[in-house]
């Protein structure tokens, strides 16, 4: 069957959106199918995200808006999958688009219908904490901003149709069945949180002040039902004593919950505790947990800060039940302290950190798409490629395959897109459409002829602002040649009117005074472009969201304000000029630095898409860190995988692999890099051009100085132990002790190395398998077998491996005794335990190659974090990108991670890179900064202030040393211009002159 250059993405949470954007930007048609009525998923519900405390809505909504209006993304909401047929490369999917009863083309999202609806229903988005109308939108910033009628609640009274001035309510709209033909499918349906069943031990549902963590997230949210005030539901008081209980529904073998670890709860709980305290300083949070699983990048630092700066108290105890104190509605918790005392304490409110379950419709999805689920009901994926499902051509990403956090989800989403690229690359660009537009009218140097369109927005503006008066006023302003008012300026017929008026009045600037440019500017820009005007000859005055809606009780003053806003827009419009987006050519080749698993996977992915790839490895052999790993905890044969990978890399004609190689220099920018490499024994020098760079330089294992390592032959590393086991050299041992966190989570290296717990358990299990009588004791601080790895932790305990916690401040002591070792441990209960052992195995941490990374970072103008790992552009939403465009990161160079995660990240980096390499030329942002060289003194302040390394100092023939902006890299933030003393940098679209015009001429 012929392959099809289109992809279907199921689920439009952050994962689905990311995968769609990646693919749409790489030249595929994307059908994004969402079952609810707006996109954004769980992330849109969150208040803040860890470990940066970023505002979730701030960072996710630009991405959602982009998804919503991308030309190559066909977004369908309120959908259900009916049938799937076909095979990899060519699938047919029958989709039911359930009616919203509101015409999305006409709905302006004004919300009057929701206000007038007499039915109140439970607000799902706010987790039932607020009431909502049957006609509603999920949240105020929803994409698409279209109201929907919830037929389950609607009584069909017809009020909404009566109040809708846009005539968007259509009760007779019917469900629609469509057939969609695509080449690949990405499943990103997310998860459903664990809801404690009725009659649960925690009194959830019975006691008002026991809430789940996701409900608490809405309580925290500034846009949530409590407007960001942390109140308890029973009486609206601030819960000074706030308890969080971890592992609710996770790590649970009783049958009530799930046996696996939900991976994210430890961190989100810490975050919720921190944010609660930040919102209301009187709140003193206490977290009851088993292990604190802060295994991700910079997570441990966050936990430490939570305790030290925010006074969050951690108690290591699993709570089995809660009792309500009837008079106060407080909750009584009984727990055991670390030193064994039983305590009883009352808390004002309890948050249950509920785990992540597979989505409720997992079985349905598995059946429809013909994929297998694992023992826990999540999508079953390949041992090494965590996005590959059991069916070829169908990929899974995000929490559908295992519980995971946002960055891992985003990484996987890009990884899935990366795999789709491999499958469908030949069909790239076949199904996307490009609009033909009339040539742009030349307006330079002509006097401004401004047209102003003022919107009534039904009654949303017209009800409070005297629109006719504002229109009349607009005509009196200099250079305004026409002003008109419309019921809905955004409606399709008004677009025609605008185009006609442009022709009739020879307009060369257009102003719309209506709602917010954040949602509507692109629409009007498109309209005037269709009328032959440059997109940037447009201005908007926000007289709804920032005027009529917020001054409803002062119509006269609102009208005055609207006039001012229109005048300011006219003043600016007079100064605006067309902006040409510059186009840059792209060299369709890639440089991959580092020949470990991540680097090789990335190189092979590029090569399979016929992109020439340069792979640079500093060692003499390819393989990197994985050369010393035999198996994964899940049983994958690493050596076999690695050998196969190396063979494929070496035999691929599109890959130039340089070993024993060192990068001499990297020059250039996105799409147009030029590099040189010194390689081989003879130190040959090779130069090449490429369009992107992937940094996959890996990391190294720590060589401990502690615990007699290096001085006593019986003290070895986990990797050495693995080698012993695999070569059957450990059979004579009777007792083995392992110490975890050697060189990790200490003052110099305050991060978790993530893999060591799994490594220790893997080796312990293997050792037990080879010699069941072997005594194994693992000395740990927290066991961090997140996700499904929890299973193996349990298995190890069942097989008799002893796990003993040691106190961070009193690390174990090792005393050599003859040919054996005596190990002294103080437990948190202050007991001293002595163990005699033949072998001490140290779980050494993973360290970044500091000097190497620093050199490369300097060459690429990208940053490192405090621990010398590479620092990505955004911890949450751009986990494989750098702020410097065209440069990506994968694998251990980014932070300690597992092989599967490294592979996912490598594929993700390729997918992100393909958004560049797939194009012949890339278009730079139009609104960029611009240097006025005759004013520039070359002081370099702008260079330091630029977050994107877009500015450099050059020696100009005429002006001497001056700053130069690389338009390909500039994002147009203007931080450079804001600081420039000489006013030698301006920002197109927000120029000094334009802002000057808005400030001046007040009356």
């Amino acid at each position, binding site marked *: 069957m012929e392959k099809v250059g289109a992809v279907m993405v199921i689920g439009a949470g952050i994962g689905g959106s990311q995968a769609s954007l990646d693919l749409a930007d790489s030249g595929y048609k994307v059908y994004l199918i969402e079952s609810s009525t707006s996109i954004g998923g769980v992330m849109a519900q969150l208040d803040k995200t860890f470990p940066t405390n970023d505002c979730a809505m701030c960072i996710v909504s630009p991405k959602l808006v982009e998804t919503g209006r991308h030309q190559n993304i066909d977004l369908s909401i309120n959908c259900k999958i009916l049938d799937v047929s076909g095979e990899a490369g060519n699938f047919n999917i029958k989709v039911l688009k359930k009616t919203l009863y509101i015409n999305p083309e006409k709905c302006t999202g004004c919300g009057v219908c929701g206000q007038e609806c007499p039915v109140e229903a439970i607000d799902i988005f706010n987790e039932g904490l607020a009431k909502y109308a049957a006609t509603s939108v999920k949240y105020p910033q929803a994409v698409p901003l279209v109201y929907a009628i919830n037929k389950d609640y609607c009584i069909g009274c017809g009020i909404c149709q009566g109040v809708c001035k846009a005539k968007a309510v259509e009760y007779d709209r019917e469900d629609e069945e469509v057939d969609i033909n695509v080449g690949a499918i990405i499943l990103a349906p997310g998860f459903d949180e664990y809801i404690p069943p009725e009659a649960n031990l925690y009194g959830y549902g019975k006691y008002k002040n026991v809430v789940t963590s996701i409900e608490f997230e809405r309580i925290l949210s500034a846009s949530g039902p409590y407007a960001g005030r942390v109140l308890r539901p029973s009486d609206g008081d601030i819960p000074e004593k706030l308890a969080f209980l971890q592992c609710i529904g996770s790590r649970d073998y009783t049958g009530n919950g799930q046996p696996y670890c939900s991976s994210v709860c430890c961190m989100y709980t810490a975050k919720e505790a921190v944010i609660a305290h930040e919102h209301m300083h009187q709140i003193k949070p206490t977290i009851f947990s088993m292990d604190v699983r802060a295994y991700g990048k910079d997570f441990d630092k966050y936990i430490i800060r939570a305790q030290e700066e925010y006074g969050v108290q951690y108690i290591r105890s699993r709570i089995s039940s809660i009792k309500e104190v009837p008079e106060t509605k407080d909750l009584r918790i009984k727990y055991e302290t670390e030193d064994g005392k039983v305590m009883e304490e009352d808390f004002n409110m309890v948050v249950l950190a509920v785990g992540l379950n597979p989505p409720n419709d997992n079985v349905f999805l598995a059946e429809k798409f013909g994929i297998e689920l694992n023992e826990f009901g999540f999508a079953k994926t390949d041992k090494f490629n965590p996005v590959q499902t059991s069916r070829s051509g169908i990929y899974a990403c995000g929490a559908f395959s295992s519980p995971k956090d946002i960055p891992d989800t985003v990484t996987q989403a890009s990884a899935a897109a990366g795999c789709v690229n491999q499958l469908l690359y030949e069909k790239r660009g076949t199904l996307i459409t490009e609009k033909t537009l009339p040539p742009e009218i030349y307006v330079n140097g002509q006097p401004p002829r401004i047209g102003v369109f003022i919107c009534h927005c039904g009654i949303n503006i017209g009800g409070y602002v005297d629109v006719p008066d504002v229109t009349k006023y607009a005509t009196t302003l200099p250079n305004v040649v026409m002003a008109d008012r419309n019921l809905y300026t955004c409606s399709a017929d008004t677009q025609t009117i605008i185009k006609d008026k442009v022709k009739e009045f020879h307009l060369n600037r257009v102003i719309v005074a209506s709602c917010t440019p954040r949602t509507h500017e692109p629409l009007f820009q498109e309209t005037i472009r269709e009328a032959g005007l440059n997109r940037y000859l447009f201005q908007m005055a926000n007289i709804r969201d920032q005027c009529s809606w917020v001054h409803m009780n002062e119509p006269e003053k609102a009208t005055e304000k609207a006039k001012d806003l229109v005048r300011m827009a006219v003043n600016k419009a007079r100064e605006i000029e067309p902006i040409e987006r510059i186009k840059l050519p792209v060299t369709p080749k890639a440089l991959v630095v580092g020949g470990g698993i991540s680097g090789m996977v990335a190189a092979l992915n590029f090569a399979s898409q016929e992109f020439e790839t340069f792979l640079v490895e500093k060692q003499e052999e390819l393989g990197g860190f994985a050369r010393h790993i035999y198996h994964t905890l899940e049983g994958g044969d690493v050596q076999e995988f690695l050998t196969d990978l190396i063979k494929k890399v070496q035999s691929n004609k599109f890959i130039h692999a340089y070993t024993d190689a060192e990068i001499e220099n990297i020059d250039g920018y996105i799409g147009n890099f030029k590099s040189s490499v010194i390689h081989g024994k003879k130190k040959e020098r090779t130069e090449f051009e490429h369009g992107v760079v992937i940094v996959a330089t890996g990391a190294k294992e720590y060589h401990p100085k502690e615990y007699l390592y290096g001085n006593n032959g019986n003290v070895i590393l986990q990797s050495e132990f693995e080698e012993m086991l695999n070569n059957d050299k450990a059979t004579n041992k009777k007792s083995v002790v392992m110490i975890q966190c050697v060189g990790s989570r200490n003052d110099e290296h305050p991060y978790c190395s993530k893999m060591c717990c799994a490594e220790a358990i893997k080796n312990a299990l293997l050792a037990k398998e080879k010699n069941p009588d072997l005594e194994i004791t693992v000395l740990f601080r927290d066991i961090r077998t997140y996700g499904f790895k929890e299973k193996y932790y349990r298995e190890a305990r069942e097989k008799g491996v002893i796990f003993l916690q040691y106190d961070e401040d009193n690390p174990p002591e090792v005393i050599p005794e003859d040919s054996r070792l005596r190990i002294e441990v103080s437990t948190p209960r202050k007991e001293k335990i002595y163990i005699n052992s033949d072998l001490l195995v140290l779980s050494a941490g993973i360290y970044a190659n500091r000097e190497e990374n620093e050199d490369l970072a300097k060459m690429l103008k990208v940053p490192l974090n405090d621990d010398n790992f590479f620092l990505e552009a955004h911890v949450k939403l751009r986990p494989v990108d750098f702020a410097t465009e065209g440069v990506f990161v994968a694998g251990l160079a980014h932070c300690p991670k597992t092989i599967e995660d490294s592979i996912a990240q490598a594929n993700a980096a390729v997918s992100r890179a393909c958004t560049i390499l797939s194009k012949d030329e890339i278009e730079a942002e139009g609104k960029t900064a611009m240097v006025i060289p005759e004013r520039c003194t070359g002081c370099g*302040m702008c260079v330091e202030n630029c977050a994107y390394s877009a500015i450099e100092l050059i020696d100009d023939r005429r002006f001497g*040393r001056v700053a130069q902006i690389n338009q390909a890299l500039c994002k147009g933030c203007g931080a450079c211009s804001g600081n420039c003393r000489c006013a030698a940098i301006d920002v197109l679209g927000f120029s000094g002159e334009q802002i000057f015009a808005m400030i001046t001429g007040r009356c």
Partner: protein
Amino acid sequence: MVMIMGIEAENKEIENSMRETARKLLKEKEVDVIIGYTKGTVPLSSAPIMITKEEDVDKLIWNNLCYVNLAKYLVPKIPQLIDPEKGDLKVGIVSKGCVGRALIHLSVEKQIDLENIKMIGIPCNGIINRKRIEKEIGEKEILEFFTSENDIIVKGKGFEQKFSYDEYINELCKVCKVKAPPTLAELAETCVGECKEISSVDDDFEDLIEFESKSSEEKWEYIKDSLETCTKCYACREACPMCYCNLCFVDQNKPIWFGKTTDLSDIIVFHLVRSMHLAGRCVACGACSSVCPVGIDLNLITRKLEKIVKERFNFTSGIDPKKTPPMMDFRMDDAEEFMLEED
């Protein structure tokens, strides 16, 4: 042995050792040109001079009227300092503490290359506040000026007046903590003569307490009174080593951000914006006040600028060339007590 040297003797010693160093530099061809001070054409002044020959060394002087910041002559680059064939000339520059600071800061701002520069460090003993003396003398014409022991003596037709040196030096010099050019290890090559190895400056800014305790209105009255006489001659700007923009903001048009008139609002805004531009850059040389023809005292603002960056960002300009100036840098945990917050 004289235990306490008078200011006069101090000056002589500085002058001698400076000339010695200068002579040596020229002789050994370490520099092509030396920028220094020479006698002014009118009393109570000094003038800059460039010398290229050994025999001219004796034209160099040092007294307490060497108020110009010589670093100013390096930015923007003047043709005299560029050889059409060799490129940049090697320059020796007589450097009191604040000239040294200016040079170091200019190198941070990439305006000069310290490799081409030799700082002839001198332990500055303070600059006389000539505006204050002129004011006190009044209308009478000053014909002669000299120092004797610890006094400043001003002579004219029919009068002679004595001023205490300690009292009549610049306010900035009274609190100056960097008398000689600061030199950290990496600047050892650059500095010849008397330099001082310091890596940070401690200051309590006690001299600002009084003004800062005033109310907003009182401050406004004071600033208004002291700036009202400004004629916008831009002498302050022209003397300032940090004012090296190709086109100063007041001279720009398209748009004309700030008026060029001598209306009070334009005056205030000029000084306000100029101080903004000098934050973290001003080296507290006091040249601006020394050259002001109407005697406006800008020292208070100078001190405030130093205080802001010291207290907020622990930064003193022109000390450590490796330290990033505050406006080129930022930290996640910068103080933000000034932000508007909910009650």
